[in-house]
Each structure stands twice: as C-alpha cells, then as structure tokens.
C-alpha cells in the first residue's frame, strides 16, 4: 500500500514544483479537448435542436442511429479516423495523424453524438405550455425556436459537460491518433496508461489527480453558470 501513498505525495510534489513533463500532458489535454468540445458544440447543438424540434420522415431512424453512436468504443472511432487521416487515407494529405488537431477531430467524432442526443432529448422534453405561451405572447416561428433553445439551456449545458467529460477521459483515440508522443501529443490519459505500464505510479496518480481537478472545475463552473443564466 505504501507505493500508493507515496504516489499521492509525489503527485502533489510534481504539481507544486511545476514538473514540465506533467504540465506538458496537461496542456496537450486542454488543447485537444478545447478544440473538440468547441467543434462538437458548433455541430451538435444545431443538429440536436433540429432533431428534437422538427418532425420529418425518418426522424425515429436518425434518432436511433445517433443514440447508437453514444455507445461507440473509442478504439473504433480511433480506427475509422486513423483510416481516413493516415497517409493512404482520403484525408491523408492534411497531415493530421499524430497531431493535436488529429486527436481533436477524432474526439469530435466521439462526443458530437452525445451533444446531439442530449440536446434533442432536452428540446423534446420542453413543456408544451411553453410553446403555447410563446405563441400567445406574439412570437413568430424563429422567435419560438430561439426561445425554445434558451429554455432548454440547462440541459444543453449538461450535454456540453457530459461531452467534455467523455473527451477528457478517453484514452483510445488519443493513443491511436496521437501516438502518445512525449512533449507533443501525450495527453493526461495516455500518460497515465504509459506510466502505469512502466510501474511509475506516482506520475500516474499525479495526472489522475489533475484529471479529477479539471472535472471538478468544469462542473463547478456549470453550477455558477446555471445561477447566472
């Protein structure tokens, strides 16, 4: 048990002394997840809103497909994205393999279904009285759509946080697309996997603590945001 206690102590030591290798992984994680979550929200919120708000033929099938994507294993996403962006793939010329943008693309594929599905659920769950109220207060269709999205904002924020949690905690995509290159594409999760494999628990635990801290900051930010908006 001693090595676990030692690991926790060393974790704080690494963080307090500003260990460059640890912080490199932290910043790489922040870069990839910031890019992927931004892209997934830009794509996922309008798509989810459309899916939840409008009635169209094949809606149920689309919904089932999106919900199925929620269970996508990270390695499967990694495999597909790898196939597309490797030198032999159709997007090989973009040079995304083993880069931070490459990881971000794959994470976007991974988490966008979460944003789409949870946003659609939030919109579908809106109170019918809200629509009647908006109409009777004189709103046109555009205003009703905008106000509906605003009424669902807490659920959409929760969708964003859930998606962020998925992006920051995944390891398969970062490993396969990023390659776990030290100082370059090594993220917190890939570093933990590597250090644990090497038997260096202290660095692994340190990075685990950082991961938990980041999750805490994001959720606390959500609570603050909910009180303000």
């Amino acid at each position: 048990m001693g090595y676990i206690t030692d690991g926790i102590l060393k974790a704080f030591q690494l963080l307090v002394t500003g260990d460059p290798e640890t912080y490199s992984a932290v910043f790489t994680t922040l870069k990839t997840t910031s890019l992927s979550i931004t892209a997934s929200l830009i794509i996922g919120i309008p798509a989810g809103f459309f899916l939840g708000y409008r009635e169209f033929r094949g809606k149920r099938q689309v919904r089932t497909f999106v919900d199925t994507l929620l269970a996508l294993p990270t390695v499967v996403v990694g495999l597909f994205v790898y196939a597309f962006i490797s030198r032999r793939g159709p997007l090989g010329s973009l040079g995304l393999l083993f880069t931070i943008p490459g990881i971000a693309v794959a994470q976007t594929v991974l988490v966008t279904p979460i944003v789409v599905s949870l946003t659609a659920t939030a919109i579908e769950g809106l109170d019918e009285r809200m629509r009647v109220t908006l109409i009777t207060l004189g709103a046109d269709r555009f205003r009703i759509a905008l106000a509906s999205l605003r009424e669902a904002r807490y659920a959409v924020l929760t969708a964003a946080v859930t998606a962020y949690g998925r992006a920051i905690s995944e390891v398969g995509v970062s490993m396969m697309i990023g390659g776990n290159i030290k100082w370059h594409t090594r993220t917190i999760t890939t570093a933990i996997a590597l250090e644990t494999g090497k038997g260096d628990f202290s660095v692994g635990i340190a990075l685990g603590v950082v991961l938990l801290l980041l999750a805490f900051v994001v959720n606390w930010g959500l609570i603050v945001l909910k009180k303000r908006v």
Partner: protein
Amino acid sequence: MTHTMLYRLQKLTFRYGEQFELDIPSLMMEKGGSFGFAGPNGSGKTTLLKILALLEKGYEGCLLFNGRDAQGLGDTVRTKVTYLLQDPYLLKRSVFENVAWGLKVRGERHGLRHRVNEALQWVGLDPKIYASRRWNEVSGGEAKRVALASRLVLRPQVLILDEPTANVDRKSALRIRNAIERIREEDGVTLVIASHDEVWLHDISGLVLRVSGGRIVGEGTDNIIHGPWISDVSDLSKKKLPDGQWIYGACAPHVHSVAVLKPSSIIISKKPPSEISAQNILSGVVAHMWEDSASEKVRVEIDISGTTFNCLITHYAAEDLKLLPGKKVWVVFKASSLLWQQ
C-alpha cells in the same frame, strides 16, 4: 369595412381522438363583449378557448375573426389576441423578463421598464420586490399573476382566460379579478373567460354560456343535469344522486342525455312540502347568495349532494324564507321542467 362581430362560429366541430368532440352549430361574439364559459371539467371549454385564441386550427367548419377566416390569418393577428393558460408557464427568466418578453417580441421597447412595472402593480406585485426574482422564486399564485401581467402589458384587443382564479389563494384570486376588471374598464378589451367561480363569472360577463360534452347547452345560470338516466314508471326517467335522492325528468331521449333546468323553475321551501304534484323534492344546503343586477332578483346556489342548483327568487321571498348560506332547504321542481338537449 369594420366588423362589430369579433367572432363568428358556424358549424364548427373539433375531434380529439375518438373520445371527445366539440360541436358548435352557431356562435357569435361581438367586439368589446364579455363572455363567460361555465361547465364541468372535460366539457370542452379549454378546447373552445384555444380555438378562439387562434392556437388550435385543427377544427372543421367556419371561424371568422373580425370578418376574416381564422385559418388564413397570419402571425400578426396573434398580437391582438392573447391567452392565459389554466396552468400558466413562466419562461426560465426573471419576473421582469417574463413580463417584458411579449413587448420585446413586438419591438415595443419604448418605456419598457415603466410598462412592465405598471403591469406588475396591476396584479398586485411590487416591482421592487418581484421584478428581479427568478421564475422559480415565486409561489403558484404569484406565478399566475406574473403570467397575467405578461398578457395585460400587451394591451390586447382580446383577452382569453382559462380558469384565471383556479388553484390560487384568495389574495391572488382577488388581485387577478381586480386586474381583469381594470383592463376591461380602461381598454374595453373583449373578455373570454372560462371559470368555475360562477359568482364572479356572472358578475363580469355579459353572457355566460354553459358548456357540456363539447356543446353549448345553456345560457346564464341554467342548471345542467347530466345522466345517466334510468327509465322509471309513468314515462319518467330518473337519476340517482350520491346521497340516494332521485331527480325525475320526463322520459329522457337517451341514457346520457343532458337536461337544462331554468333557475326560475325552482321553488325553495323551508320545510319538506307534502301533497304537491311536483315529482322533485330534494333537500340541500344554501351555498351562496348574491343579488343579480340584471334581473333585480336574488340568485341562490343550493348544494344538493355535491351538485349545485342555481335558483332565482325575489328579494321578498329571500327575506321571507330567511335564507342564509348553510341553511337547510328543500328544492321543488316538476319533472317536465327538465328540458332535454339534443
């Protein structure tokens, strides 16, 4: 061309699945009028109100609004008609934003704060205390008042209210009634109200229509008696009340027929009458009494085994009988006084 008739309904029907149907052969409502709809839950009042609020367009038949077919009216007409739901919805914003929202949608931002504060005061909510509160920081009665303020601030031509005083405390109900009466006096708004608060409904409405089973079955304080009716001897039909008393009518056309009993057809007695030809002698308790300004008579509501009977008697009779709420009385009417609705 100006139309004094605001609504004209002809052969209007609305189906809600297989179960419920609204059927209005003809109804006209003039501008500036005040119309009350009374009837039991599920009778079709809310559906009718939604149709009049131009929210429900899945009906068949004809509805003319201001002389124009309501089916073809665009969004702009919605700014003239506003509707308060029985269970209102507040937007997830502050009270101020809730009341201001309709004005902002209309682009009426001039004097916004003043207008919103004024509307909040109409419904008895101090803007200094309530304007900044969030939607979830007000009670049920206050929420209803906020929702009413958000309609009143729009200064609509037609104000349609579904049970505006239901499920709120007495203070909120009083504030709501005052605010509605105020806008009616100041703006001459056309009022359409569905309410179980019959005393107030008769007070504020020029015409009260009684709705039952999706049909307008009577006017004013007419008593509506629902089936099921059981055939009895001597060409009579009867209906059993929960306390075991029976109501007799002359041969009901159908087991579920609806009967109308005019208030003036009812005789009130202090003692159980005997040796009279009337079939119906029912004991009950006086629930409410109020002066009917239109007829200059006294309206008496008598509770008989959970069913309210409206009676219309003279001042002299009311004084002679020493009627007071809570007093036990006997209600007498002939079986032939029940008029069957088709």
